[in-house]
């Protein structure tokens, strides 16, 4: 159990999903996440679990909704342009209060783009492309170990809040191998017997649907969902701080970019500058309060992303108006390297500010 294994992020996610009781997987292959489905296609057959290679991503996620309504722990996985196809179903899942786990291993867009690395789906995941007042919980791992650990957590949060949850993974992490320990699932099982559709023998019948022609019932239902989101925002915010206490400069970054940000902070430490790194582990709910608190002491922030400034607006919203925020990013192609970020920060120090490199 505690033995270390060298695993790709994609395989770590698939293994953890099986460990915490994922009994149905629906998916359609797309690089850079195909190994998740490939691994599960063999293992789920061995364990007599349901694996369906669907005819499209739209079909895959709607199959997930159906299976979820019966109480099965379900997962689908895809990548950026194909996750775009699933947005309608996410809105339905939120409205129907169905626990769905969606893993998005990102590639570059917009449109079909290509398989290059990018973090371009921050907005897609946190804001969402479905209709209505709904929210999707979003977790963002920065290592292969966290890919496994957070897979346990997304299944738990989906069941706990009866809501779709997205694991937003950098393509780099999906494809990179690191030594990890596959731990036991630390989360309890959530009793779903009060709502699942498992046959109405000896009980009143139940319906799960999002159509609601009665205006006051629809209003009440949407307000109830909203209350749930406030609860999630109160309970589930999670982040990592690296030397942030008393830092003169803080780099904000998510996913694997936060690790490169740490190497940048380490570099500036050798130059006598006090740099910290702030990494949201939950992108929704975003850790606004903690970042605001840090900005009372720290006056200069650098937001670094593999996109053109998507988390940037959340950082701006969090950080107090007395602090300055500089954005460093690029949309796609080769991953931003330590020396490129250092060069961009040095340029900012010298007064030459460009919004992207």
């Amino acid at each position, binding site marked *: 159990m505690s033995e270390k294994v060298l695993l790709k992020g994609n395989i770590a996610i698939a293994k953890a999903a099986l460990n915490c009781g994922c009994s149905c997987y629906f998916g359609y292959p797309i690089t850079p996440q195909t190994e998740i489905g490939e691994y599960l296609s063999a293992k789920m057959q061995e364990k007599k679990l349901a694996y369906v290679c669907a005819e499209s991503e739209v079909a895959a996620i709607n199959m997930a909704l159906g299976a979820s309504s019966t109480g099965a722990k379900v997962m689908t996985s895809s990548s950026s342009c194909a996750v775009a196809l699933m947005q309608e179903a996410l809105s339905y899942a939120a409205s129907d209060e169905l626990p769905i786990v969606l893993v998005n291993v990102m590639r570059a867009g917009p449109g079909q783009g290509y398989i290059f690395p990018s973090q371009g789906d921050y907005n897609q995941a946190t804001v969402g492309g479905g209709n209505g007042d709904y929210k999707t919980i979003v977790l963002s791992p920065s290592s292969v170990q966290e890919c496994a650990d957070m897979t346990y957590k997304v299944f738990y949060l989906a069941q706990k809040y009866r809501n779709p949850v997205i694991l937003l993974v950098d393509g780099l992490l999906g494809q990179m191998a*690191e030594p990890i320990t596959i731990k036991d699932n630390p989360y309890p099982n959530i009793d779903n017997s009060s709502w699942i559709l498992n046959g109405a023998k000896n009980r009143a019948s139940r319906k799960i649907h999002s159509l609601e022609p009665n205006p006051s019932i629809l209003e009440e239902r949407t307000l109830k969902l909203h209350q749930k989101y406030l609860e999630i925002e109160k309970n589930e915010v999670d982040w990592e701080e690296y030397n942030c206490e008393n830092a003169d400069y803080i780099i904000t970054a998510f996913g694997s970019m936060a690790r490169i940000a740490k190497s940048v902070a380490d570099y500036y430490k050798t130059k006598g500058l006090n740099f910290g790194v702030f990494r949201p582990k939950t992108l929704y709910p975003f850790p606004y309060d903690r970042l605001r608190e840090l900005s009372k002491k720290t006056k200069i922030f650098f937001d670094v992303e593999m996109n053109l400034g998507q988390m940037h607006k959340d950082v701006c919203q969090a950080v107090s108006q007395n602090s300055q925020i500089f954005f460093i990013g690029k949309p796609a192609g080769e991953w931003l390297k330590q020396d490129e970020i250092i060069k961009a920060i040095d340029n900012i120090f010298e007064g030459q500010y460009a919004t992207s490199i």
Partner: protein
Amino acid sequence: MIKNFIISGSGGQGVLSIGSILANIFMLDDLFVTYCTCYGAEMRGGAVNCEINMSDKEINTLQNEKVDFVIALNQASFDKFISKVKENGTMIVNSSLAKIVKPRDDIKYIFIPFSEEATKLGDIRMTNSIALGVLSKILGNFKLENVKKGYEKVLSSKTELIQKNIDAYLLGHNLK
């Protein structure tokens, strides 16, 4: 102390096998490792390379402009990665499939005809393990026990080849 490696060759030369074995050996030595693979659409014959970072601390520089060691198993890999070797870094070259030329004078070169050595051993497929053995000699700190475990993990579906590969590895280790 972070060290990084690129292993490169063509599909079928076992680039990813020894890359994965090297990463496993570091893991078994309780070091931090990252291992990234890169290959074209074609498998056999296409360009394949992998990049490994190893450190005694958490690895955060996930992508490198330049690396300490490159193993090039053919001419195309030599040409592609010669510029990626750090100053004072080492280029280890399969001179059976690449010319012995030294276009840079700020790096070290090791030219060994790995393919010929493997053919002498009786199996050209052992080219990669001989190269890994040469690298291990330079790094100088692999436990043979971990090397065996590394081979066992990666070649678990080809167990009949494990001993042969370890013999080739040892041959490479003792070459220089």
